[in-house]
C-alpha cells in the first residue's frame, strides 16, 4: 500500500471518535437505528477498514489532501468523488484522464476552479487513488457518506454527526478532524507555519487560496493553493508543532521588506494586530512609527495577488521593492523606476500593487 506513513498520524483521530461519552451513546444509537438492518456498525465518520488495521484508500485520500476540495458525495471546491466516478467509471479512457489530471493539474473540466498538479503524491498512490475514485458510485458506504455530509453541511461542523445541542452557529470554516478549510469567508489562523518565523499567521481565502503572513517581519511570505491547513501536529499528540499546508505553493514573496519610507533602508517594523470585519482581513503595523494597514487579496479570474496599503500621515516618498524574482508586478498608483516603484504622492494614503501568479 505504498507510502502511507502519513496515514498513521490520522489514526489518533480515527480511533478516538468522540470526546464525550454522551455524544458517543447518541451517535451509536442512531447508527443502530439506521443501519441495524444492513448490519453495518462502522462509524461513517471514519474510514471503513477492510480488515481493521490497514490504512485504506480513504485514509490516503485524506492524507494526500484531496479531502480539502473533494467531498465524498457533495460538490465542494471540486466535484465530489461520487461525481467523478459517475463521469469516468464507464469511460474506457476514464482512468487515464483522471490520472493525467492529478499529475498535471486540471482546469475547466468541472467549472472555473483549478486543481493544481498533485506533485506531493507518489505515482503509485495517484494510481491507487484513481482506481478507488472510480469505484465510489458503487460503494456500499455511499449512503452513510451521504448522510454524514448532509448533516455536516447543515450543522457546519463535522466532529459529530449529531445536530448541535444548542443553536446552530454560522462558522466560516469547515473542520474535518484536524483539516480546516475555508467556505466562503476568509479566516485568519495563527499557528507555526513552514518557512515562517514563529509569529506566523495563515489566512484562508475562498477558492482554496491561502497565504502566510509573518507578524515578526510584518510582510507576506507566500501563497498556496489547494486548501488551507492541517493542524494535526498543532492540536494532537504533544502538539506545539508546525501545521501543514494543504496544497502547493504558488507564490513566494520577495525576502526583502516591500516598503521604503523616504530613503530609509530596512525600516523598523512593529506589529500591532489585525482586523477581521472587512471583506478581507487587514494587518496593522508600524513602519518607523508610521501606521500601516495592509490588505492582501487574490483575484481568481486573473490569478493575481493584490497588496493594498493604507499609510497614514505619509509625508516622505514611499517606495515599493518588488524583489529579485521574475514575477510581473503592476500598479496604477505608482511609477516604475529602476528595480523600484515610487508611489504617486497623492496615492500615498492608499495604494495597491498587483502580481501575477502562474
Amino acid at each position, binding site marked *: 500500500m505504498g507510502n502511507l506513513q502519513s496515514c498513521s498520524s490520522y489514526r*489518533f483521530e480515527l480511533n*478516538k471518535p468522540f*470526546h*464525550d461519552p*454522551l455524544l458517543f*451513546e*447518541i451517535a451509536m*444509537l442512531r447508527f443502530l*437505528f439506521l443501519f*441495524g438492518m444492513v448490519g453495518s456498525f462502522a462509524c461513517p465518520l471514519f474510514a471503513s477498514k477492510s480488515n481493521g488495521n490497514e490504512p485504506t484508500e480513504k485514509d490516503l485520500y485524506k492524507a494526500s489532501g484531496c479531502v480539502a476540495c473533494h467531498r465524498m458525495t457533495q460538490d465542494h471546491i471540486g466535484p465530489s468523488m461520487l461525481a467523478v466516478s459517475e463521469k469516468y467509471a464507464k469511460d474506457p479512457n476514464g482512468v487515464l484522464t483522471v490520472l493525467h489530471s492529478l499529475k498535471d493539474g486540471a482546469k475547466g473540466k468541472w467549472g472555473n476552479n483549478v486543481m493544481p498538479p498533485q506533485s506531493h503524491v507518489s505515482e503509485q498512490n495517484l494510481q491507487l487513488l484513481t482506481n478507488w475514485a472510480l469505484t465510489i458510485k458503487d460503494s456500499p458506504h455511499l449512503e452513510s457518506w451521504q448522510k454524514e455530509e448532509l448533516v455536516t453541511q447543515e*450543522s*457546519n*461542523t*463535522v*466532529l*459529530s454527526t*449529531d*445536530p*448541535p*445541542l*444548542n*443553536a446552530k*452557529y454560522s*462558522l466560516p470554516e469547515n*473542520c474535518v478532524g484536524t483539516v480546516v478549510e475555508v467556505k466562503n469567508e476568509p*479566516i*485568519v*489562523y*495563527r*499557528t*507555526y507555519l513552514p518557512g515562517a518565523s*514563529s*509569529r506566523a499567521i495563515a489566512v484562508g481565502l475562498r477558492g482554496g487560496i491561502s497565504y502566510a503572513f509573518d*507578524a515578526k517581519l510584518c510582510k507576506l511570505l507566500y501563497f498556496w493553493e489547494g486548501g488551507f491547513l492541517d*493542524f494535526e*501536529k*498543532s*492540536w*494532537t*499528540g*504533544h*502538539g*506545539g*508543532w*508546525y501545521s501543514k499546508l494543504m496544497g502547493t505553493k504558488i507564490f513566494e514573496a520577495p525576502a526583502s521588506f516591500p516598503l521604503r519610507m523616504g530613503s530609509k533602508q530596512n525600516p523598523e517594523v512593529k*506589529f*500591532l*494586530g*489585525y*482586523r*477581521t*470585519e472587512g471583506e478581507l482581513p487587514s494587518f496593522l503595523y508600524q513602519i518607523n512609527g508610521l501606521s500601516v494597514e495592509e490588505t492582501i487579496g487574490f483575484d481568481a479570474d486573473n490569478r493575481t495577488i493584490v497588496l493594498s496599503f493604507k499609510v497614514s500621515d505619509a509625508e516622505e516618498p514611499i517606495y515599493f521593492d518588488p524583489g529579485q524574482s521574475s514575477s510581473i508586478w503592476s500598479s496604477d498608483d505608482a511609477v516604475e523606476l529602476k528595480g523600484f516603484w515610487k508611489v504617486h504622492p497623492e496615492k500615498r494614503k492608499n495604494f495597491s500593487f498587483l502580481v501575477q501568479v502562474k
Partner: protein
Amino acid sequence: MKKLTLLFILTIACSQLGVFADSSYSVQSLPTPAGIVCEVTGLDYSDDGTLYICTRRGDVWAQKNGDWQRFAHGLHEPMGLLAGPGFAVVSQRPEVTRLVDEDGDGTADRYETICDQIAMEANFHQYNYGLVKGKIAGNLHGILSCSGLSKPDGSPASANGFSPIPYRMWSYQISPSGEFRPWSSGLRTANGIGKSPQGELFAADNQGDWVATSMLHQVEEGDFHGHPAALRWDQNFPFSQDPKSSPIDLLEKMRKPPAVHFPHGELANSPGSPVWDTTGGKFGPFAGQMFIGDIVHPRIMRVALEKVNGQYQGACFSFYHAEGLKAGICRLAFSSEGELIIGRAGEGNWARGKPDSGLQKIAYSGTTPFEIHRIELQNDGFLFHFTQPVNQVIKLDPKNFGVQSYHYPYGPNYGYPKTDIQKIVPTRVEQSLDGSTIRVMIPNLEERKIYQFNLPELKDPDGKSLRNPVAYYTLNELLEN
C-alpha cells in the same frame, strides 16, 4: 424501533443532567458549543454576566443566557483569558492579545497586540499561561512555560525543562503600555496564575525535573522558585556557567520555598490554576480559601493558607474527587451564583489515554459539610479548626490521628518520593469545650517538613464522618517565640 430510540434518548437525557452528589456538593456537566473540541484553557465572567472561555485550539466563545456564540477564532493556543464588556484579553503563544468587538455584533473584529515581546519558537512545551490583572490597574501577569527538548519531527526528546530563549520559566508582568517585564524565575511549567482577594499572585508548578512534587508558590517580584535553568536570564545570578551545575545548597538558599506541596500521585500530578472563594458563603464554609484542580486526577483540591513569619504556608486537602467530576481540570472560576465553574482540557498527550475536555460545575447544597476547615500552626503542634463541632462523646486517641512527617528533596531528578517518612504519635490531643477545634501536640516539630494527618475516626454530632479526612500541612517556618 422508534420507541426504543425514544427510550434511549430519555435515558441519555436523564444521565446528561448527571448530578452526582454528596449531601453538600454536587457536580454537573455543562453544555459546550457543539461540534468543537472544547479544551477549556481560559475561563472568566465579564461584568455583565457573560461567560467567556478560550480553547486550546484557538477559539474564544461567549455564553449569554445559555446560548454560545463564537467571539474569536484562530488564536495560537491561548492558555489564559480575562473578560471585559465587549472584549477579552488572552495569553497565546506569541503574544498577549486584546480581542475587541468594535461593531457590537458579538464577535471580535480587532485582534490587538498588547505585547509580543515574548520569546517563543516551535516547541511542544512553550505554553504562555495566564492571565491575571496585577495590583496596579492595567498590569497583566502570566507565566512562560519551559521549553522541551524536541526531535526534528517535533516530538519530545526529553521530559526536562529548558530555557533556550529569554525568560522561559519566568513569570512576567505586562505594563499598560505593553512592556514585558520578567517577574520571578524558576517555574518549570506552572499552568496558570491566580490572584488572591488580598491581591497576591499564586501559581502551582507541576512535578518534573527540579520539582519534586507539584507545589504552590506565592509569586512575588524577584523570587526564584527552584528550577535553575531559568537563572541564565537573571543578571544578578553570580555564576556564569550553566546554572544547573551550580551547587545545590546555593540554589536551595536562593529559592523561596513553596507555600504548599501537593503529594504526587495521591493528590495531584498536574495542577491547573487557583481560584479563591469570594462567594460570601454561597459555596459553603470556605470563604477566602483557595481551590485548584488537576489535569490528571478528577480532583479539585482546597488550600487553607496562613502566614508564619511573613511567609505563606499551610494545609491542602482533597475537596472533590471523582463522583462525576472528570479529569483534565485546567481553569476554574466562580459564577455570580456561587457555583464553581470548571474548565477542562484533556486531549492528545494531556489526556493520558482518556480524551476529556469541556465544562462542569460544582454547586453547594446549603448543607454544611463536616470538614477540617483549616490547620493553625502552634508552638507545640497544630490547632485543627472544623466546620462543624466534633462529637465530644468520642474519646480522642492520639494514635488515631495518622500523623506522619516527611519532606520532598530539592534536586535535579524528575520528581522525588516522600523522603524520611516518620510516623508520629502526638503527645496529646485536646478538644475545645465547644468541640469546634482540636489541639494536636507534636513532639519535636521540625521546619521544612510536610505533616500529614489522616483522621477517619472523627464524627460530627450526627455521626457523619469527615468528608475529607486527609490533610497535608507544609511547615516551612516554625513560630518565633
